[in-house]
């Protein structure tokens, strides 16, 4: 057997090294996807259920996705195993050059991180277009720009697309890219699962974007039955698309959890783990265990719509409450999946830009894990006015109130770190501070919603909508943008323009707050969610909101210009350590070598060891190997 060489060509293969070779790439993936869709539709409609042709669409999407995955190369490894041929668990995709690496199956976690980043930004763009169309419709209380059924298609499109983005936009790009560096390993535990979690996303986005072609779906992201069963074929896009996203969450979570548990380098104890890794870890716990419930519930919806079972139809032995409970048992941990990595980012960046250790590190970890644990016990607060047994309400009110305690720990830790620090107001730091302000408002409004009597007025109104936009957009999206400004030089080797960055921050912060703050008032003033017509007295309020929403979108366009220009049209390579902070990824050169560490490092200090007179290095790269 030949030994490793990195020279051109390789040794001739011996009989024991013969391998399965299926020529697979993006093109074969797309072709097989189309073929799979067609076959699925034929089979589905041929089954002969009385189902308004839903089975065809469901099977078409499923087969299409499966054959896409086969066509892009995921079947190679299982088939090789099935035929008993030897496999070295190494990275595929390295044979591509240039941009083609990012358009094909790669098992390199850095490539996957960049693929995720681009996919998430594109999905956010589509969701943002939906938002602009919604706000345009709401300019007038009774005239509509689009017909009312199309309005709900827009609302549903915007909401589900943004949910997709929020669930994966931190763990996907930054978790996949940086967690191996931060724990000192060259590999992810399951690179194929990691790649799978990414490659489920483009089919999901395309399936969701295809929904309007089938008439869209009218339920918003919550998919409540029985309205879902009234809906046309567009709802099948929701079922399959959301199942794919849930699968991606579960698969990515299994990979991330196993990586952090099993592959930490020597010296990287649990108490030295960067808080960003803790944020990703706790979100992955929720993602891995909550997503399967969503998958089950969506399969039930699929069965109801194809085989005419009746999981959710009261007159036939089912119950809409079944869907509500299953959906929100997933749905509440889902929103903590959104925010826990964002907490991780903010608590990671503030010590670096304040040049002080993270104050209360262990408390912060306890806070993250406390949120993770409590988030399983609060879901019925979405059902306070649904008709649940009254005896349940006090318990869920208490648990929901209690979850604000570990959430508040984030502020405690941030304040302790900022106290007497040496703060540099860089663009990432600005966005972190913006996060703190926005999430404060979002979190406080959550307390209003958590008390049942006040929830009576606020549930299902624009107040609740403002609450989750402040927490998700003002919170998570601000954290994502902070992370992009921070890590862009290391991920892409290019520097973003910081003057444009500062303009972006102030523009976005002001526009966001002025757009969403009045929506609290709209909710208190009797405007329900998801409406296309509203009381005429609220027109000036809505017009004000729409105006600032357009400006918010424009600020994101400015950001997009900055990103695209810096990445593709500016040839200057960024310095290896532009922020001069103590974190292992900045000790490595730019551009990053293919192999993370030539020798696995030994970690010798915590990640935020500022203020030391003679600081120890973050990690000791280890002795040189003895000469052969």
């Amino acid at each position, binding site marked *: 057997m030949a030994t490793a060489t990195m020279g051109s060509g390789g040794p001739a293969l011996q009989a024991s090294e013969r391998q399965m070779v299926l020529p697979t790439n993006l093109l074969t993936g797309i072709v097989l996807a189309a073929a799979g869709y067609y076959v699925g539709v034929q089979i589905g409609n041929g089954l002969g259920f009385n189902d308004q042709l839903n089975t065809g669409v469901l099977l078409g999407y499923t087969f299409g996705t499966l054959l896409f995955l086969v066509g892009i190369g995921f079947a190679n490894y299982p088939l090789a195993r099935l035929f008993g041929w030897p496999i070295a668990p190494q990275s595929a995709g390295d044979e591509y050059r240039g941009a083609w690496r990012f358009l094909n199956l790669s098992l390199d976690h850095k490539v996957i991180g960049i693929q995720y980043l681009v996919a998430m930004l594109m999905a956010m763009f589509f969701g943002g277009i939906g938002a602009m169309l919604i706000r345009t419709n709401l300019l007038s209380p009774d005239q509509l720009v689009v017909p*009312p*059924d199309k*309005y709900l298609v827009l609302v549903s499109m915007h909401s589900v697309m943004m949910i997709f983005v929020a669930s994966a936009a931190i763990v996907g790009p930054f978790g996949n890219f940086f967690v191996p560096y931060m724990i000192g390993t060259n590999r992810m535990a399951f690179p194929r699962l990691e790649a799978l979690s990414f490659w489920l996303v483009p089919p999901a986005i395309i399936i969701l974007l295809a929904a309007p072609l089938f008439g869209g779906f009218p*339920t918003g992201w*919550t998919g*409540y039955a029985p*309205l879902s069963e*009234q809906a046309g074929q567009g709802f099948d896009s929701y079922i399959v698309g959301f199942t794919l996203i849930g699968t991606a969450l579960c698969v990515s979570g299994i990979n991330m959890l196993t990586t952090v548990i099993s592959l930490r380098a020597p010296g990287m104890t649990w108490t030295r783990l960067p808080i960003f890794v803790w944020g990703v870890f706790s979100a992955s716990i929720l993602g891995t265990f909550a997503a399967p419930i969503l998958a089950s519930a969506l399969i039930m919806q699929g069965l109801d719509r194809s085989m005419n079972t009746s999981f959710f139809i*009261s*007159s036939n032995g089912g*119950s*809409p409450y079944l869907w509500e409970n299953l959906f929100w048992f997933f749905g509440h941990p889902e929103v903590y999946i959104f925010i826990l990595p964002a907490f991780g980012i903010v608590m990671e960046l503030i010590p670096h830009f*304040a*040049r*002080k*250790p993270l*104050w*209360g*590190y262990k*408390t912060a970890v306890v806070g993250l894990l406390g949120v993770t644990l409590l988030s399983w016990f609060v879901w019925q607060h979405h059902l306070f*006015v*649904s*008709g649940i*047994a*009254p005896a349940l309400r006090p318990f869920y009110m*208490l648990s929901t*109130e*209690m979850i*604000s*305690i570990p959430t*508040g*720990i984030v502020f*405690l830790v941030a304040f*302790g770190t*900022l*106290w*007497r*620090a*040496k703060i540099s*107001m860089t663009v990432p730091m600005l966005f972190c*501070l913006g996060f*703190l302000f926005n999430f*404060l408002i979002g979190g406080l409004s959550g*307390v*209003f919603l958590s*008390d*049942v*009597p*006040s929830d*009576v*007025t606020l549930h*299902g*109104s624009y107040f609740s909508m403002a609450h989750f936009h402040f927490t998700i957009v003002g919170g998570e999206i601000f954290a994502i943008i902070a992370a992009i400004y921070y890590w862009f030089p290391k991920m892409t080797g290019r520097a973003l323009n910081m003057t444009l960055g500062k303009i972006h921050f102030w523009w976005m912060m002001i526009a966001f707050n002025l757009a969403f703050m009045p929506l609290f008032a709209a909710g*208190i003033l009797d405007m*329900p969610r998801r409406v296309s017509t509203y*009381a005429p007295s609220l027109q000036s309020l809505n017009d004000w909101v729409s105006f600032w929403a357009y400006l918010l979108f424009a600020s994101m366009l400015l950001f997009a210009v900055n990103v695209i220009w810096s990445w593709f049209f500016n040839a200057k390579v960024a310095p290896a350590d532009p922020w*001069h902070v103590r974190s292992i990824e900045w000790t490595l050169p730019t551009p990053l070598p293919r192999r993370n560490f030539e020798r696995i490092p030994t970690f010798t200090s915590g990640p935020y060891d*500022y*203020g*030391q007179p003679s600081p120890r290095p973050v990690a000791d790269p280890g002795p040189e190997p003895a000469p052969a």
Partner: protein
Amino acid sequence: MIRPNRTHALRLLIAWAVLSVIGVVIGLQLSLPPGSQSQQSIDQSGLLKLMIILSTPVFVGVVLFILYSVFAFRQKRGALEDGPRSYGNLRLQVAWVAITAVVVLILAGIGISQLNAAANGTNFTSSSAPALATSGDVGTTEGHALQVQVIAQQWYFTYRYADYSGVESLHLMLPVNANVVFHITSTDVLHSFWAYQLGVKADANPGVDNVTYVTTLQTGSFTVRCAELCGIWHGAMSDTSGAVVSQADFATWITQLQKDNLSIPLPPYAPYYFPSPRVKGT
């Protein structure tokens, strides 16, 4: 200039106290929805006001701290000095967690006590329908409660008065100073009955009899909206003609309604309506 911790803390504390007091005073002046048309509205407005008053110092404190830190603890331009090596202070952390826990538990306690003060515009499901009363006092605070069934469908509400032979109306009229029990159900998809000024919101679920209460205190009109996405005209499913009227006016109105309904073959009153109801045991 390096100031001692005490200076920074004192400045912050004074600014926080002053701004919080101002904020709380402003908050106390607000007249908050849902208003005072029912006992539930009064309770809910009170709770909202309490929460605004409690949130104000928190909001002021956090914003003040951020702004102050950004100005007082700034890195000198071009420098790269480290801050002090401070990893935490157990007493401060415990104090913070304890204080937030106490505030949150007090809020939860108040909310629970309001829930237990029977009837708060919230609800529970009941599997038994109210007995169909033929006559008797219109629900006064001393007497029998007025039973009103709210039937939601795409895209309007219908109201049936169980105490008056199940007569139907598209407009919700209620007597003042009365205990009213709503029985809310749907005939197709999920809706939600939201009587804004009354402080009542409860979901309408097909095959379910959602019960919620209100005690009316003032005459006046109120708006009814649907608060759960129910399809295309969800936003249009609103009705501004709801009204709380005097007992005499209500009696007149309901008598007229019963006369009008005589010629209409109404379906029998039931707690919920299925297209093809089955019988237990078959």
